[in-house]
């Protein structure tokens, strides 16, 4: 067969670099973002921008080593967050951010590996990976933007959609029980579990810093509004109203059993740090059980 592809010429390197140099704003936090990547894709009123800012502020306040911090994401609106950050970033297949991150971390334990992804990505298609990474206590940080639906594909129901919620695939109201992510994370073995809403910006930032510095599988859930899809169909108001209502309805607690922190369509949202324990990580145990017994030099632990 004779093959004749349509001509496709790559732009010269000089032009690529030139365009790149022009692509940065003046905001002081811009230095944490990759050049030429803003504007982002998110709708106005979306909580993902706030979560990204919380992460960037965590990088600043927590003085993260940008050379050694790696962000991995899956598919969905928040999945694009990875690509905005001026770090080594990997935007993987749907649901697979956690095992990809596991490979990165175990192959180079000196990296700080953070997964930023959504509720559908992490808990429906990727649910199995979540429970197993938590069980193994792989030393990674997981940040979940939970907006109760699949926003990128137009607002379908998912594993965190509250009972009675209307989505494009639950037009009469959701009849499935949702996951309570805090409870699930604790039961699966996470060493740190926190939940905040989009307007808890400082708390989100501090939980992210704590998680990145803490050895083991840490989980931060951020309740973020999706006014375009979830909000509109359930008459929850615009993005700002949703954020305010999430904040006003939140109850800071350290005493509530994670089992009792489920989130409904409306009503109270338990926020705070629910788990903060110490446990040997996967690599600690692997060093002890496998590497040492096989008489090999010790693999370096998290610095």
């Amino acid at each position, binding site marked *: 067969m004779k093959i004749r592809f349509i001509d496709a*010429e790559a732009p010269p390197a000089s032009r*690529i670099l030139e365009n790149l140099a022009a692509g940065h704003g003046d905001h002081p936090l811009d230095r944490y973002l990759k050049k030429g990547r803003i504007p982002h894709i998110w709708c106005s009123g979306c909580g993902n921008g706030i979560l990204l800012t919380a992460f960037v502020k965590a990088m600043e306040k927590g003085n993260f080593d940008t050379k050694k911090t790696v962000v991995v994401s899956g598919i969905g609106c928040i999945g694009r967050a990875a690509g905005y950050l001026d770090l080594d970033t990997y935007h993987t297949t749907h649901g697979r951010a956690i*095992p990809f991150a596991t490979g990165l971390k175990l192959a180079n334990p000196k990296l700080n590996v953070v997964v930023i992804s959504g509720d559908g990505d992490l808990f429906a298609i990727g649910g199995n990976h979540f429970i197993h990474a938590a069980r193994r206590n792989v030393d990674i940080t997981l940040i979940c933007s939970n907006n109760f639906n699949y926003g990128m594909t137009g607002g379908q129901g998912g594993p965190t959609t509250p009972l009675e919620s209307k989505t494009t695939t639950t037009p009469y109201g959701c009849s499935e029980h949702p996951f309570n992510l805090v409870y699930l994370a604790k039961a699966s073995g996470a060493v740190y579990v926190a939940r905040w809403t989009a307007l808890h910006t400082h708390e989100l930032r501090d939980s992210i810093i704590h998680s990145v510095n803490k050895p083991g599988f840490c989980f931060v859930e951020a309740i973020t509004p999706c006014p375009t899809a979830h909000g509109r169909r359930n008459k929850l108001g615009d993005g700002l109203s949703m954020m305010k209502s999430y904040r006003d309805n939140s109850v800071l607690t350290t005493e509530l059993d994670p089992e009792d922190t489920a989130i409904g369509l409306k009503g109270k949202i338990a926020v705070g740090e629910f788990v903060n324990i110490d446990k040997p990580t996967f690599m600690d145990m692997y060093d002890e059980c496998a590497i040492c017994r096989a008489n090999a030099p010790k693999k370096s632990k998290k610095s």
Partner: protein
Amino acid sequence: MSSKAVRTGAHFMSGDEACAEGGMAAGCSFFAGYPITPATEVAERMSIRLPQVGGVYIQMEDEIASMAAIIGASCAGAKAMTSTSGPGFSLMMENIGLAAMMEVPCVVVNIQRGGPSTGLPTLVGQQDVMQCRWGSHGDYEVIALSPESPQEAFELTIEAFNLSEKYRTPVVLLSDEVVGHMTEKVIIPDSKKIKTLSRKLPKKKPENFIPYAHEEDDVPPMAIAGEGYHVHATGLTHDELGYPAINADAQERLVQRLIRKIRNHAEEIIRTEDAFLDDAEIIVVSYGCSARAAREVVETARASGMKIGMIRLITLWPFCEKKIAELAALERVKKFVVCEINAGQIAYEVERCAGGKAETILAGFMGGRIFTPEELYRVVREAAE
């Protein structure tokens, strides 16, 4: 010289174990897998061997996760591999596409068993050849190698790593249950005599580095996580910077290059073992365990005066199109007899490349055991009549 990674010497070893030793000799330091017959022994061997050199063995929750983990590990700079069989290979398809798209070197071992579905867990098949070529969605090229013995399983696993590093692409070692479970003599050479390759690393400084810039050989250098390059890699169609670019221009540039980098180097990649092709009128084409039976038949038929030759495919993908087409064009070459344990997979390739100039006959077999030489001899006899 023997080392912890290279166990120089003569061993009595199964194909699966030899495959693991090949990985070790190639410099593999990360293995993620999930138990599955008949590939489990590869993982078991790696769980013993990797801790001895400070490498990581991890049993993941499934094959999807195993594939994702080896891609992640490779992005962190490790040479990484996984092993599986049919059902697990199906699950890996999604992320094999990711590795092709992100251009991440990694090695996937598939010890084929009979299918479809759960099929014959403990018995042989060669039915994943086309899945290996086309299994993940979208257009991409793969490299797949097929060993016929434990010795070759050792050697080709090293070769698989070298090719994956050279071309920044997933490479499949497409073995089968018979080769995986047979135990034979395996000679592991002096570590100094084992040629290993590593991916090109960026020479430019991070500020001048364009991660997917078009290089002469179409294989860009790969920046490793944690080295300060701040690269972005995505499964989305991306531009030269690695940034998502959802448009026809970027798609054209990227996918053409992904295809070109293998197709343009096909002749360097392809390896076959040829016998008696100088005067052959009938040519047996075979690979993996089937080639062992085929060889005996060809030698027997030769001894009885038949003008028969043989091509054993060592590289299954890219396919040796040129060789088949050139042979088919010869006046004397009448027929190709493709001997494989499936309902016709490589046979279609042979027929396509022969272009009607020589007849293609499939000696097919649905799996569960290998051909007896007698069964295959009957097909060859008929072809000669």
